[in-house]
Structures are given as structure tokens and as C-alpha cells.
């Protein structure tokens, strides 16, 4: 098959990749190609048939597929080219890609700039070390979501959900709608992993019990899952003897975290941030390899797809500017750091002269008046709470950053009580 040459190549057609395509075309790139390994465009949102998308982007509440439909229409109008069923399986350090699909076989795509938009994957059972047997009936919540929403099959009749990530919460309600029983959602931490609104709308409204500081400590059953043992945990998250309880179930769903999907990024030699598991970025969404950009869940796990789309547009735009040789040149390099209550944030460094938005998540919730801030003296906002399940934004003024003394090479983000 003939190899391809484009201005901007984008890996992944979820909200990030589709938006990046639009951003790149709008910024003047001629040939913009999005490569997607799935049969259809839309990424994870294809299976998110619940409402809750678009409140920011379109000021109305849409389902995932509706939301993506609008973006995909826009992308087609903007002249973005798509190849579906096309897996990028290798990325060279110059950002060029090896791709395969059944129509074209294996082919090579070179691009002046590349955008990583591969999203994330779910943590499996093995990664969280639950002892016991390995019967059928154990699924990550996203896999179950695909089975139920896209394939039309039920993963089980009586379900226990481990972890309170949003997908697990949404699946709890979905399974109840399908006539299954949900025995409860068990969360290891003393606080919820997902959004408050999902706890209210997906659990409380359906009388599904939600247990904090509890976990599954054993899986039972040889062929099909027969039950799990749950137990309370102490402050160090170790099971507390005497609190064990057996729950009969034929299905265990895991909503225990998402991991940015960065195998290709690693192959290309892109620096990966130890805490986020995504590429280290500057505010132009540029990785440590200058021609490679990144946006969306491949960088840091976002709580709302609307933000991902917004970031995708910006990343695509910058990639197009880079491809044309007109991306702003670095003026100085300022490292961003997390304070005591912040580990996950992006971008990790600031090199230009413009305004910058930094996204971050807190480690521990603060359920009272608090402030989020960037030191030294760059930003402060009062909030009624901060929660690990929700992304926070900090806006930094370019002028204020440039006014920092030369000796200041880092800025610190944090959230604390007031």
C-alpha cells in the first residue's frame, strides 16, 4: 500500500482527536488525517449513551454519541480526513507512524506534526491484587458498558461494583435499568472516586448502597463467579479483621482507575510524567519531542469530555502552527509543581508568553471553604470544596508569568482550607 504524507497526523478519534483535527484545519493545515483503530469514530463516548455531555461545549445536555456526532459533523465540514479500523502500532521518534487496516494492509504515515489522542484504558483486576480464583463474570466497568450498550449482552444478574469511578457509577444504574441487581458499590478510599452528581443520580436515586473504606478481599467461584468477600479497611487501607462479609454475586465490575494509553508515546521516546502516566507537556500541548503533541485522556484523566474537546482543538491548532513553522518559540521555561494536595496536573512546564490554563486534581477532598492557588502569587480562587473526582482549573496570566523574577523557575499549585 502507498505510504502517506500529511501535515498533521492524529492518533485516536475520541473527543480529543476529533477536536484536534478541527483545530488543525482551522489553523490552516492542509492535510489533516485522524487514524482510529475502532470501526467507528467517537472513542469511548460511543458507549456512553447516558446524558451529561455538552453542557459546556453546547450549553445543552446530550448523550455521548449525540455529543460526538456534533463534533464529527464539524470535523467533516472542516475537511478533516479519517481512517477508521486503522491501528497505529508503531511510532518512530520523528513522529512518523506505522499503521495497518484490512483495506490497505500495513502502511507508513509521515507528518510534520503528530497529535497523540489515544485516550486511556481501565485498570484490570490483576493490577489491584484481589486474591482468589479467576472465574468468568469479572469485567472492567467499561467492558461491561460496551457489552450492554453496544453489543446488547448482560455481564451478570447480581453485581458487585468495586471502585467508585464514574464509569462504575453509571454502570450501576444502567444494570438496574436492565433488570439486574446491584448489591453495592465498594470504595477503598474514604471518599468517592467519581463525580458527586453521579453518586446522587446513579446510586442514591436507585437505592444502591455505597460503602466507603471497604474493598473486595477475595473472589470465589471456579467456573462462573459465585461471590466475593468484602471487608472494611483501616487508614492504611489494610483489611480490618472481623469485618469480612460474603456477598453472593455472579458479576464483579471494576471501576478502579484509568491509565493513559502511552505505549506509542514511549516507543517514540516521549517523556512520561511519573504521576499522571501521560506525556510531559508544555502549555502548547507539546511533548518532549517537539513535533509530537498530545491532548485528552492520554495526557491526564479528565472528568468531563467537554474539557477534552476544548483541549483537543488547542492541541490541533498548535500542531498545525508547528507544522507550518510558526508556533511561538520558547521564551523561558517555568516548571509547574504540585503542592501537598496535588499530584496530577497538566501542563508540567510553561515556555511561552501567553495566558495558560493548568488543570489539576487534588489528592484528598476538602469539604469546606478552601482556596486553590498558584504560587508565587499568580492565582487564587475560593471554592466551597475540592474533590479528587473533579478537575480544577487555574488560570495564569502571561504578563504575570513574564513578570516573575529570573530566579523563579518553578510555580506550585495547591488547594487548602481557609
Amino acid at each position, binding site marked *: 500500500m502507498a505510504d502517506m504524507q500529511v501535515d498533521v497526523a492524529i492518533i485516536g478519534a475520541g473527543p480529543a482527536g476529533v477536536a484536534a483535527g478541527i483545530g488543525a484545519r482551522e489553523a490552516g493545515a492542509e492535510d489533516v488525517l485522524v487514524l482510529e483503530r475502532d470501526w467507528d469514530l467517537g472513542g469511548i463516548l460511543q458507549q456512553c449513551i447516558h446524558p451529561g455531555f455538552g453542557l459546556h461545549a453546547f450549553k445543552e445536555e446530550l448523550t455521548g454519541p449525540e455529543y460526538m456526532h456534533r463534533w464529527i459533523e464539524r470535523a467533516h465540514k472542516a475537511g478533516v480526513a479519517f481512517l477508521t479500523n486503522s491501528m497505529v*502500532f508503531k511510532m518512530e521518534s520523528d513522529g512518523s507512524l506505522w499503521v495497518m487496516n484490512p483495506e490497505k494492509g500495513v502502511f507508513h504515515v509521515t507528518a510534520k506534526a503528530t497529535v497523540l489522542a489515544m485516550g486511556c484504558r481501565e485498570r484490570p483486576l490483576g493490577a489491584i491484587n484481589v486474591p482468589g480464583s479467576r472465574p*468468568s463474570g469479572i469485567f472492567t466497568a467499561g467492558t461491561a458498558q460496551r*457489552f450492554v450498550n453496544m453489543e446488547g449482552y448482560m455481564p451478570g444478574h447480581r453485581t458487585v461494583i468495586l471502585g467508585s469511578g464514574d464509569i462504575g457509577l453509571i454502570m450501576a444504574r444502567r444494570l438496574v435499568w436492565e433488570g439486574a441487581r446491584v448489591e453495592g458499590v465498594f470504595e477503598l478510599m474514604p471518599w468517592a472516586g467519581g463525580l458527586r452528581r453521579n453518586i446522587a443520580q446513579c446510586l442514591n436515586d436507585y437505592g444502591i448502597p455505597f460503602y466507603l473504606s471497604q474493598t473486595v478481599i477475595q473472589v470465589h467461584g*471456579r467456573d462462573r463467579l459465585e461471590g466475593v468477600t468484602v471487608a472494611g479497611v483501616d487508614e492504611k487501607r489494610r483489611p480490618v479483621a472481623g469485618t469480612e462479609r460474603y456477598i453472593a454475586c455472579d458479576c464483579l465490575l471494576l471501576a478502579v482507575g484509568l491509565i493513559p494509553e502511552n505505549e506509542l508515546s514511549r516507543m517514540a521516546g516521549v517523556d512520561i510524567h511519573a504521576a499522571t502516566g501521560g506525556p510531559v507537556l508544555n502549555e502548547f500541548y507539546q511533548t518532549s519531542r517537539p513535533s509530537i503533541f498530545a491532548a485528552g485522556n492520554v495526557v491526564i484523566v479528565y472528568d468531563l469530555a467537554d474539557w477534552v474537546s476544548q483541549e483537543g482543538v488547542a492541541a490541533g491548532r498548535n500542531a498545525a502552527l508547528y507544522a507550518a513553522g510558526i508556533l511561538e518559540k520558547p521564551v523561558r521555561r517555568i516548571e509547574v509543581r504540585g503542592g501537598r494536595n496535588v499530584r496530577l496536573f497538566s501542563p508540567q512546564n510553561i515556555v511561552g508568553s501567553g495566558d495558560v490554563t493548568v488543570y489539576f486534581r487534588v489528592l484528598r477532598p476538602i469539604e469546606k471553604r478552601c482556596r486553590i492557588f498558584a504560587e508565587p502569587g499568580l492565582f487564587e480562587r475560593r471554592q466551597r470544596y475540592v474533590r479528587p473526582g473533579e478537575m480544577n482549573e487555574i488560570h495564569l496570566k502571561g504578563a504575570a508569568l513574564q513578570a516573575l523574577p529570573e530566579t523563579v523557575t518553578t510555580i506550585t499549585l495547591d488547594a487548602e482550607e481557609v
Partner: protein
Amino acid sequence: MTDKTFDIVIVGAGIVGATLARELSAYSLRVAVIDKASDIPSGASRANSAMIHAGYDDQPGTIKADFCPIGNRLYHELAAPLDFTLKECGSYVCGFDDDDRIHLEKLLEQGRANRVPGLEIISGETLRRREPYASGDITHALRAPTGAVINNFEAVLAFIDNAQQNGVELFLETELKDLLLSADGAEVVGVATNRGRLFAPVVVNAAGVYSDLVARMAGDDSFFIRPTRGEYYIMDKRIGSLVNSFFFACPTPKGKGITVAPTAENNLLIGPTSIVQPGRDDTSTTADGLAEVIDGARRLIPSIPLNMAITAFSGLRANPDTKDFIVNVLERPLGFVNAAGIKSPGFTSAPAIACHLVELMKDRLAKRISFIPDPTFIPERKHTPRFEMLSLEEKRRLAEADPRYAQIVCRCEMVTEGQIVEAITRGARTVAAVKIWTRAGAGRCQGGFCGPRVVDILARELGVSCEEITRHGGHSRYLVGKTKDYWFRGEN
């Protein structure tokens, strides 16, 4: 299944049954292999350290000590013609003090007595120059260059597959229920299974952890099996390069202890524990066991990161009370052959056991079956293509020849639809069997993404509905039914 007649029935399609079947398939014999499992390997041959031992571990004079180095050589010879993955990585037994040093000397001597090539003792410094992540506390190590790791799934499939190509019949989900004897009890005439009877003048007991119970059916109560569980973690390929060789600590009375090893696919494997079990098929993992694995592994390689585990599993060793392999032909009932209690290093020894058994049978059972070489015997076979391992050029060619090889199904291990269809054609019936054949679902997301697609392809190729597909046979159905609105989608 209606009654059928064979020359030999092998009970158990682990590595012992598989290597024997393949060895027998070189003769004009009608051979059946039965296994109660839905996919193979399923017993100890499925869950073990996959180490092809060099052979210094075993007391000279034992059967194990004889077979292990020969088996090692045979795997090296057969890896290419039978197309299974063998990685020559060598091994180290690590010592932490003077007592250990003495022990290493003993192993060295023992190894030389067993004719193991290339053994040497090196200092901790030399070790760390070659293996930078090895613990600073290691003072000496015994190097065995012929130690290798194998893809144990592929190896069992390779032997069975080649045997089948040469006419051996494999019956899965077929459990030996009883031995059929002549009226006077002096001779074997076949086996009774859950699926009917198979008549044969020779029956081989290769039933692993159940081999004592099978021997009982022949009235042989000379040994019993003490199932001993070993638990493991598999870690992400990203840290597969923490070690280049197989790492053991000095053995203790309990066994070889926790090891750290690269796998044939460059994952990192740590384990096993060694705990005697009451049951014969409980391959659960436990919190204590897994904690022991971590501690033991970190003693050898302190920097192993825990968050890189992708899955945990356990296997059951068929440890016989006699402490050695039981390989013999019974006088009564005549025709009953034991390849029983094949404990570690049983995987390594299996091809040697198979050769030995054939000689033994030729000698002792000549009246019952005749060993005439089969001129049509084909000594080689090909595995399904390993797409991930192919060069770009080879990938290109394969994908062009058959577009199903350009359709990725498992993205973590880069398994294509072509491979999965091929595995199903060659007998895979369950999600687990597809994983064993192709590694689809064996990667870091553990089938999260490809699970639904594998179920789909299995259903399509087998012409059944998705709900009928099982994870690993029996009652392990993958899905439990359709959603309410499935019926409104116009798909049915």
C-alpha cells in the same frame, strides 16, 4: 461419542501427555489423548515458572537428575521444528552468605555429576555488572548458561498439534471415570469416560495432580500426591528488562523458593510460593501468598515496582510422597503405564520421559502393541503466526495476503483476527483457549478491550450465539444473556 478402539489411550494432555503423544505419533499406532479440561494446557503445565532447568538441582541417581538435562537439550533441538518460543537466558542461583556459598559449591558439583554444561560460580560484583538490578546483598551466584525460559502454552500446543497432524486424536472435556480391565483383572482393555468408552490394550496415566487417583483405578497405591500450590505475579512488559536471566535464591528445604524471571514474551514473572493444599484443583491466589512472593522477589531484585503487576495466578505441583517421578509399566494389570507424580522439573523433563517411556513400552508391551515407524510422520509444525514478533516487512506481506491479519483484535499484545480465526480452526473453543493460542487478552489490559471481540469472533466462527461462549469451559459462560433492548435492535 460412541465406543472407539485405539492402541494407546493417554490420560492427561499436560506436557507429559503431549510429548508422549507426539513421540508415539512417529509410529503406526492409533493413539488417543483424553483430558477433562476444555482447553489445554490446564493443569500444572499451564501455570508454572516455565523454566527449562539446566539440571544441577537434582540428586544424582534420581530419575529427575537423569531426565532433566536431556529434556533441556531436547527443547533446544525441538523449538525450531515445532515452532514454540524458547528464550535462552541462562539462570543464576544467588547466595547471600558463606553457608549459601557452600551450598552453591554443592550444586555445582551435583550439576557436573549430572553432566550439565557450562556451570560456574561468579562473585556478586560480576553478577551486578551483568544484571544491574540484582540485590547488593548477593555475594555469589551459580551461573547455568543452558537454563532457558519457554512459552509453556505454546510448547504443550506444539507437541499436541504435531501429534494431531500425525494422526493422534485429542478428546477434550473427556474425563477418565474408570479403567476397563479384563474379567480376571490382569489386563487393561480400555477406559470409561463421561463421553463413552475407549478401548485400548495400553493406557498411560499422565494425569498430573490426579495421577495417584488414576493409579488407584489400576490397583496401584504405591504413591500419593500432595498438591502443592505455587502463586505468582506477572508484571508488565515495560519492566521485563529488569532481569536478563532467571534468578533463584539458594534453595531451602521447602524448595527452590521465590524466583524472578523474564518470560518468553518479556514480561517479568515472580513467584512461586509452596503451600500444600487439601484440594486438587483450587488455583486461587491468597493475600499471604502474594505478599510472600513480593518479599521473596525483592530479596533478589529490590527495585521491582508493585504497580506493574498485570495479573496473579497459581499452579498446583503434583508432588508425590516418593519424591521422584513415577515412570513405570505395571505387571498387573498389564498395559497400564505410569507417568505420574511429574513434579518440578517435570516440564523440562517431559520430552526425555516421553522417549524413555516409548523405549520402556517397546520392551515391555511388545506383545500388546507393535511399534512400526510411520513413514508418513511429519516431525514439524507451525504455530499460528505471531504477528507482534514479525518484522515490518513480514507484517506487510501477511496483511496483504489475508486482510484478517491487518485487523488488530488484542491491542496490548497485537493479536490479529487472522490469528484468532486460525486458533479456532485448530481447536480453540473458549476465550481462554484463544488466549493460550494467541495471547489475546494476556497483556496489560487483560482482555478489557478485546474480550467482547474475541467472544464475537468465537461465536461467529463456531456458529453459536455469544451467550454460549465460555471463558474456560464448563459453567464459565462469559455473558449471562441479552439486554432488554437487544430484541429491538433488529439484529435477531
